[in-house]
């Protein structure tokens, strides 16, 4: 085949060689971005994760698999410990529960906004996005105020006998989930809303017409149609949840240890970068596997 064939591309007479060069030009910014800000840092991370920690927190470049075996619980002073695996399990559970509540809350929100007429739709969408205008730490501090002992929620909980009088609703599991769900809700609600907007309601009517009760209408006519938005929402919620450390740290009172906190600790107070890198890489791998599963399942639905 001739290398420099003349061709017409979008009404322009040019050659295949020119087109290829132009393609490279347009591709280069994205390519370099991914190279320098994703691929290379990841490579460094993997490299560091196989190194040893120096006595004063530096990195000793001698190869070891110790960081990974430690993560699996081996090599401790007292033999095998499940600590890190438990943290991983807790992170997965927290992320799963947070995602679950986000899904439960997002469907009504998405349908509510979807059913608004004209401008009020945009007002509600803006209200949903407004929390993003504030820093996450500040938003989390705001929960301190809301959950303080003298505020109605804590008083109500005390009146129900769930907590002592004069106690706050934080720190604790409840506060962590509240913070997590409120942080990630828009990430679930927005893609879901986009799917709801694109829904073909005649399928819902067809399901009703064919003797379906509400649950079956949802399962067979609504869920398959909103699955694209739902799967994006799950990805956008579940994955950042796994790495979240601000909210569990603040609202959990530094007792609620998740993968995110563990990593932050290694790069912070513990000054153990190689171990931190090993955990990060491990988390990334798990996330990637989860992503692949969601994609595969998603394709089956579409």
């Amino acid at each position, binding site marked *: 085949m001739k290398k420099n064939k003349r061709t017409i591309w979008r009404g322009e007479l040019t050659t295949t060689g020119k087109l290829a060069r132009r393609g490279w030009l347009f591709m280069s910014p994205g390519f370099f971005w991914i190279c320098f800000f994703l691929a290379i840092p990841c490579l460094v991370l993997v490299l560091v994760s196989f190194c040893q920690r120096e006595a004063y927190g530096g990195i000793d470049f001698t190869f070891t698999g110790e960081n990974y075996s430690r993560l699996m619980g081996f090599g401790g002073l007292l033999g095998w410990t499940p600590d890190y695996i438990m943290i991983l399990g807790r992170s997965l559970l927290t992320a799963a529960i947070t995602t679950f509540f986000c899904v439960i809350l997002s469907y009504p929100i998405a349908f509510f906004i979807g059913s608004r007429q004209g401008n009020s739709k945009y007002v509600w969408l803006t209200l949903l996005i407004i929390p993003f205008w504030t820093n996450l730490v500040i938003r989390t501090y705001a929960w301190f105020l809301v959950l303080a002992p003298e505020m109605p929620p804590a008083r109500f909980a005390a009146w129900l006998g769930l907590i002592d009088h004069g106690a706050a609703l934080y720190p604790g599991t409840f506060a962590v989930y509240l913070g997590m769900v409120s942080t990630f809700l828009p990430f679930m609600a927005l893609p879901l809303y986009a799917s709801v907007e694109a829904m*073909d309601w005649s399928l819902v009517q*067809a399901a009703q017409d*064919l003797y379906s009760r509400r649950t079956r209408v949802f399962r067979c006519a609504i869920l398959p149609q909103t699955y694209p938005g739902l799967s994006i929402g799950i990805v956008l919620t579940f994955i950042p949840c796994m790495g979240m450390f601000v909210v569990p740290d603040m609202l959990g009172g530094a007792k609620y240890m998740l993968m995110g906190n563990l990593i932050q600790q290694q790069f912070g107070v513990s000054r153990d970068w190689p171990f931190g890198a090993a955990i990060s890489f491990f988390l990334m791998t798990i996330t990637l596997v989860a992503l692949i599963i969601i994609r595969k399942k998603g394709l089956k639905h579409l």
Partner: protein
Amino acid sequence: MGLEVTDVSKHYGDVPALNRVSLKVEKGEFFTILGPSGCGKTTLLKIIAGLELCDSGRISIGGEIVTKIPANKRNVNTVFQNYALFPHLSVYENIAFGLRSRKFNRDIIEERVGKALEMLQLTHTSERYPAQLSGGQQQRVALARALVNEPAILLLDEPMSALDARLRSQVQVELRNLQRRLGKTFIMVTHDQDEALTVSDRIAVMNLATIVQIGTPTEIYERPKNKFVANFIGDANMFEATRTGDSGLITEYGTLETSLPIPWQEGAVVIRPENIRLHDSNPGFNTLPLKVRDSIYRGDHQEIWFEENNLKAKTTNHTLYRPGTEVWLEFLKDALVPLNEEE
């Protein structure tokens, strides 16, 4: 009794979609609701299906009042306008959907879906997905999906609108034959008058949220009640007339005679173009000599317009009517229809 709709009204905000609509459909009848878009015909169908509730009035199916019963508990199924097939389910699963909702056992489902596939010649497509089917096949799946449930009434919402013109006329005949074979009550909504005339036992013509006329295709076409029906269905020559004597009409085309009852002193009359006959010499009765202004040759007939007026005639005469030809028009006495006054 198949279906009885009594005094049904429905408003969307301030806009009336249905205004005290009543009709009766006999069991085993092919009944068509015909009207222009926005006349409320689809709303009426949705109310019969139970997909929408009416503000007032009563619906009864097979003698049982179902006004407030939701769609999933009514023994009625719908073929939707764009078929609304579930894209993630195969043809087989689409057809089995209603039976699975009602928790029939596997053997019954298999048997009934198999029969439905066979009846609509879909057996070879049962494993395919809706996106892999042609328009005609999709329509048959929609029909099978509704009919497999053995509904008391089958509702069809513009079932031909997604088909191309050539296929449409063929499918119309097939649909009519299917209905005759099954002996089931079909209620179809359409804006296409040819379609309505082709398939229906009876037609209800709707306009502006009300039913204007109900009758057999012949009645609707040959004896339209008012200007709307006359204009909406087929071609019509319409003109003002004043009554003289029992059956005489003074019109701009002279004094004509009709064999139909005249319900007014002054009003409008209509005559279909094919009921104006053309003659070379005066046949003697209800006639008018005119000059041809323009003519179109359509193969099996000719359409002809005349000088100094808007009359249109259709003829199957073999003479070619060129502009300038002098002809005698005969207004057929039993096809000159006095219209009811509009409300």
